Structures are given as C-alpha cells and as structure tokens.
C-alpha cells in the first residue's frame, strides 16, 4: 500500500549560532498517520518539529537551510506567507499555554484573526472544536470564564481546540502530555488517535511506550542526525541500526 506523503523534508540543516543541531535531515511524513519523533533529550526533536511551522524563525541566531515541502510547497521559499503556513498546523506545546482571555475567546482567537466576524458562525466554530477536542461538556456552562482557571489537562485540550479552530491539516505536538497527569495524558493520546482520521499528526515524545501506543510511523533522531525511520512496527520489532536498538533497550537515553 503506497501512502501519500504530506510533508517532505529535504536536506534540512539547522544551526543555533555555531551549533549544528539538525544535520542533513531528509524525511517523508505520511498523510493522516501519527508520526512520532523519538530520541534522547537534546537530540533536536523539538527543533525538527518547530522547523515544520517556522516557529524557529522567532529564535535568536537561528539559521535554517534545506527544504520543507508541505503539500509540495517549500515553506522556506521566498514568497511564502508565514502566517498561512502556521494556520495549516495546530500546535500543542509541552506545557499547555492558554491565552490570557476567556475559554471562548481562546478558541475564537484564530478564526477572528483570519476574518470570521459573524457571531453565530463563531459560536458554531467554538462549539464544534471544543467538542472535537473533547472539552465541550466540561466547559459549556462557563465559556466566558478565564481559561487560566482550567486544570492543566483541560488547558491542553483547549489548546488543541484553539489549534483546530483555524482549520489546519496538520497537528504538531511537542511532548504534549509531559506536563499532564496520567488520566489527562491518556485523554490527549486518545484524541490524537481519533484525529488522525482527518489530520496528519506529528508528535515529539520521549516516552517510548507512548510512541508504541500511538505511532504509525517512527523517526529516531540521535545527536541531530536522522538515524532511522520507518513504520512503527518495523522500528520497534526489528530496528536495523544498532543505535536505535540501543535506545530501545535503554542503553542510551
């Protein structure tokens, strides 16, 4: 079965000042699957993820070369509108970061920026995506309360709803469950699995078991290099590279 590729990374190099953090990465990320980026701390997982929606641009002293093609378009190309690239992708960060406004406004924030003014339509969008993120029942009676009063687990699902509300095709997760309690983690994990029906999901995780549970495709990074990538089953049951094997067995971490 041939899969459609959604994101193609071609010879991507990232430097922080003099530090070469990603070294010649080339990789195809399949459409509507969960791709997990694994590897020890400091190996460049988050950098790789952030290069996909150009959030790296905001980091001081960073230099990127190479190509990242999303639906065939190079997002580092000269005529690219960064905001349009980012709109295509929802982001879940390590620590859920709600915006300093009400629950409703957190979800409506993106759509409003992109020009939705009609109140009924906004209500509809907010409701829809809170349902999609699995948060609606918990917050429907207090939509206008500050988002900061939600529990951390709820905040992460709110961030998911906020990301989904701008109609992305891709969901990026940077260790999205690392700040959450086990129950909330499970909730978010299940959501990601549900969402792959409609979205391409790319998740950075340092939890191998999590990658095993949810990933269809696995990418192993070590010290800024792409060591091995392939379907999850293959990587987990029969890693070809000795370094991947060493990581799986906990010899390197």
């Amino acid at each position: 079965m041939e899969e459609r590729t959604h994101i193609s990374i071609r010879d991507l190099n990232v430097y922080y000042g003099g530090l070469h953090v990603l070294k010649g990465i080339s990789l195809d990320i399949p459409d509507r699957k969960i791709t997990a980026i694994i590897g020890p701390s400091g190996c460049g997982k988050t950098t790789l993820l952030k290069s996909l929606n150009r959030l790296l641009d905001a980091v001081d002293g960073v230099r990127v070369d190479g190509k990242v093609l999303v639906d065939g378009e190079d997002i580092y190309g000269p005529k690219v509108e960064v905001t349009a690239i980012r709109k295509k992708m929802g982001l879940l960060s390590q620590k859920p970061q709600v915006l300093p406004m009400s629950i409703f406004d957190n979800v409506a924030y993106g759509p409003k920026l992109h020009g939705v003014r009609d109140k009924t339509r906004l209500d509809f969008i907010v409701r829809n995506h809170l349902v999609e993120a699995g948060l609606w029942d918990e917050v429907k009676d207090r939509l206008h309360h500050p988002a900061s009063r939600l529990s951390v687990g709820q905040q992460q699902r709110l961030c998911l709803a906020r990301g989904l509300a701008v109609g992305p095709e891709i969901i990026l997760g940077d260790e999205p469950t690392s700040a959450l309690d086990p129950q909330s983690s499970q909730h978010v994990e299940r959501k990601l699995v549900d969402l792959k029906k409609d979205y391409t999901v790319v998740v950075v995780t340092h939890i191998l078991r999590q990658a095993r549970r949810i990933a269809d495709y696995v990418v192993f990074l070590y010290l800024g290099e792409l060591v091995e990538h392939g379907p999850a089953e293959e990587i987990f049951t029969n890693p070809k590279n000795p370094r991947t094997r060493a990581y799986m067995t906990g010899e390197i971490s």
Partner: protein
Amino acid sequence: MKLETSPARLRHRRMVEASARVLMIGSTALVIGSLLAIIGVIVWKSLPALNLDMITRTPKGGYYLGKEGGILNAIVGSLYLGVGATALALVVSLPIVLYLNLYTKRKSRIAGLTRFAFDVLWGIPSIVYGAFGFVLMMALGLRASLLAGIITVALLELPIMSRAIDEVMVLVPRELTEASSAVGATRLETALKVVLRQCMPGIMTAILIAFGRGIGDAASVLFTTGFTDRIPTSLLQPAATLPLAIFFQLGTPFPEVQQRAYASAAVLTLLILLISVASRLLIKRLTKHVIK
C-alpha cells in the same frame, strides 16, 4: 567524627538572627512611620486653611496676601497636565516597549542601547527637563502653556513608564507568543491581543508611577507651563499646577498663606492617594484573564 555546635556558637547565631530581625522590622517601621508622619504634618498644618472654598474656588484678588479664594486653578491645571502628559507618554512608550520585546532580538544592540538610554534619562533631574522643555518650546514657537508643559512632563515620564512596562514585558513567556503565532497571528496581532493583555497589571502600575511622578513635579513645569489664576480653556494657555502653588504660597511671608500651601500639599497627596486606590481596584478587574 560527629559535627557539634558549641553552646557559645549557638548563642552567637541566635543573637545575629535576632538583631537582623530587629533591623528589618525597624526599617519597615521607618517607612510606614514616614508616610504617616508626612500625612500627619501636612494635615495638621493645613487644618486652619482647609475649607470648601479652597478646592472649589480660584484665587481672587489678594489671595496671595491672605484674602479670599482657593486653588481650584491649580487642582484642575495639575489634573489636565498629569492626564495629558501620562497619556502622551503612554502613546510613545507602548510602541517602544513592544518593539524592544517583540521585534528585536533579546540581546540586540539597539535594545540594549535603548534600555541604557532610559536608565540615564530616568536619572536626569527634572529641572533639566524643564530647561530642555523651555528650549523646545521656544523652538516650536510656543509660549508657556499647558501644551508645552504636557510635552515636557511627558518627556520626564517617558523613561519611567517605558522601563516599568519593559520590566513586566520581558517576563512574558516565549511559549505564550509562540502559541499566538502558531495559529497564524502576525507579530502585531500577538503584541496587541496577547502580550498587552498579559501585561495589563504591569502597564497599569507603570501608568500610576509615571502619573504620580508627573503630577508632583514642580521644576519641569516652572518655565514651561507658567502659572495663572484662571482655569485654562485651551492647550495654548498657561496653567497653574499644585506643586508650584505650594512653592509660591510657602514662599510668602504670611502665615495664613503658608497654611494654604500645606492645604495645597494635602490636596495633592490626597489626589495621588485616591488615584492609587482607584487604580488598584481597576487592576483587580483587569487581571482576571492573566496567566499566572
């Protein structure tokens, strides 16, 4: 080998602990004491002169010799000046601080230089601002007027306000601005809709500090705003201010008029106190959504 503290050493440490505590409490008491003492002295000295006329009437002929009238001209003048200058300073401060925090790199030279400039400007005595404002006023072809005063006092307030807002804005976590960028917000949208909201309590405090400094300053308005017995009806007219009213009345040889100087000081202090309390209440409402 077991480590043991000798009784003498223990006594010594206890004593140091106790004396440090006394010093700390003493210093704290001194601050609160000074505030109470200042208010006490002013109120006590102004009691004979405090009456409704004082705050509802402008000076009549011979007011400065002890005849009838009040300082309504200075109260209104100071409020106009304080509000005007603070608004102007805010309008200039916000773009600067947003630029420093969202548009330049953390360690950029221009940001460092700007912050250094603010620190220097903060330290410049207000009489220098007065002299500079005077030169500026002449260059602009203005006479001593409310407008010239507002510009001068805004310059005086600018470094205070910018630095105070900057202090809170550097604390905005990068993840928060990233969260906003990630849904496709431009830098300006992130600045106005997210960063300003998150900094609202700090901005309110900065406004308050700058306003207090501006409304209470005498030296910078001496040459630029002038002084008049009338309430100004246009930006181009001179205006009276409370600090100068205090200064002039205190300088007369008449005890009655000197009492009125204290009454003016009481009014100024009360004004600042009222505004502080009001803005604290306002801050409570504005912080509702702030992310801790």
